[in-house]
């Protein structure tokens, strides 16, 4: 029952987020700050993980191609497909559920515990619009981070391939360029936009509606990570089935 009422509450939160907007001059500053905190601040970890996971995908693929009839350029092809279709949008988003999600939940949760949200409400400010809306807007730049992740993943694969001696640079590049389907990019970025919205709103929901003290802020962050990951995985399945199935 609580689960169903929480789903309802989540959608009411989304609706309320768009009501009585905060002054643009203030909102602009909040959006820029959230872009810095949530997107720019995540570029380092996205770049690091993408590069090395791209490398690992390449090594694993190369080591599993034992049949001499399978051309070596398939290593580049498999890396590109894995990185673009799944690793960059989905796997990175789950990591972001930990990084960005727990930041959002703990910062909003702390504001709840210390009555800062009550202070906003008493002043007549729509606290959901003030706190959640700029995060949702800022996260619309998240696909930019994912694009960098895609590039670095493929680059990491290339580095691992060439320097590890698994294939030649020419084979890898041939594989990366082979049978390229632009719709796969559209599918990937569409997923990323949906994940960005989830990454901004589910952790906000857990922070905004939390009750209790400092201990509960920690618990809310953990719950938020779990639910954000679960929803991302479910939505990933649904979107993949709808768009590629």
């Amino acid at each position, binding site marked *: 029952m609580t689960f169903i009422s929480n789903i309802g509450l989540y959608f009411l939160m989304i609706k309320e987020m768009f009501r*009585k907007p905060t*002054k643009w001059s203030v909102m602009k500053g909040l959006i820029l700050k959230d872009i810095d905190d949530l997107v720019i601040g995540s570029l380092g970890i996205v770049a690091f993980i993408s590069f090395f996971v791209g490398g690992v995908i390449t090594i694993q693929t190369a080591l599993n191609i034992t049949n001499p009839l399978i051309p070596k350029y398939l290593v580049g092809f498999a890396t590109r497909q894995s990185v673009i279709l799944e690793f960059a949008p989905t796997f990175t988003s789950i990591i972001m559920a930990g990084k960005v999600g727990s930041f959002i939940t703990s910062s909003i949760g702390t504001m709840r515990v*210390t*009555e*800062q949200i009550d*202070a906003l409400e*008493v*002043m*007549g400010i729509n606290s959901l619009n003030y706190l959640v809306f700029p995060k949702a807007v800022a996260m619309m730049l998240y696909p930019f981070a994912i694009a960098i992740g895609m590039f670095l993943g493929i680059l990491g694969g290339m580095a691992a391939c060439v320097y590890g001696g698994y294939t030649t640079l020419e084979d890898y590049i041939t594989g990366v360029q082979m049978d390229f389907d632009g719709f796969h990019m559209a599918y990937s970025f569409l997923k990323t936009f949906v994940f960005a919205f989830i990454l901004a709103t589910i952790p906000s929901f857990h922070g905004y509606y939390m009750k209790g003290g400092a201990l509960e802020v920690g618990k809310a962050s953990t719950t938020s990570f779990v639910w954000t990951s679960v929803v991302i995985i479910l939505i990933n399945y649904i979107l993949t089935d709808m768009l590629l199935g």
Partner: protein
Amino acid sequence: MIEVKGLHKSFGDAHILKGIDASFEKGKTSLVIGQSGSGKTVFIKCLLGLFPYDEGTISYDGKIYSELTEDQKRDLRAEIGMVFQGSALFDSMTIQENVMFPLRMFTKMSKSEMEDRADIVLKRVNLDDAHHKMPSEASGGMQKRVAIARAIVNNPKYLFCDEPNSGLDPKTAIVIDNLIQEITDEYNIVTVINSHDMNSVMEIGEKIVFLQYGLKEWEGSKDTIFRTDNKAVTDFVYSSELFKKVRKMYLEEKQ
């Protein structure tokens, strides 16, 4: 003026407020007192619209709160200043930015005008040199003064204070009490303070509402509280030996 009639509020089976009537006038410092669990925080939060109430009416200068639309409620709240128990300062902003916050949200003032207004109110609460400090760098007393400055910066009609002296030493508590009373007189606003600090009651209680078990048990002022023979009030207010002696001396002096 704020008028409350027959206010009821329950949380599940717990009936917290059981039909409270009270009125709070302009230019007067009104205190809501009572033991922990008497319902005073719920009462204040109902007045502020943070808790929806079950029955009764709350009217702000004749406007009945429950009959207002959501937007009208938000507009009314813009006329309210609130000092929270824990100050509730925005910890990502400096003290000056905290004070300027209501101006940024509700006025079309330029940055320099907002800074000038923040200077005036920060001076008013005796904080001339703390503009660029973060709230975490300020002491408890300073944080309370910043919260008062933020509450009055936009010239509110109503000022609410939830336990403004909690966690403060007696000397700082008196400074805060006097500041609230001076501001109430100066701005001619309705001030409602939720407190269980007996020093505040004696110092600034121009009107006192005593709550017990969710009911208004007694109403009076700092002068009449010495003479009351209401047992619940005397048991609560004069629970310490010191206050018992003070009361005895006061009554002997009056005879």
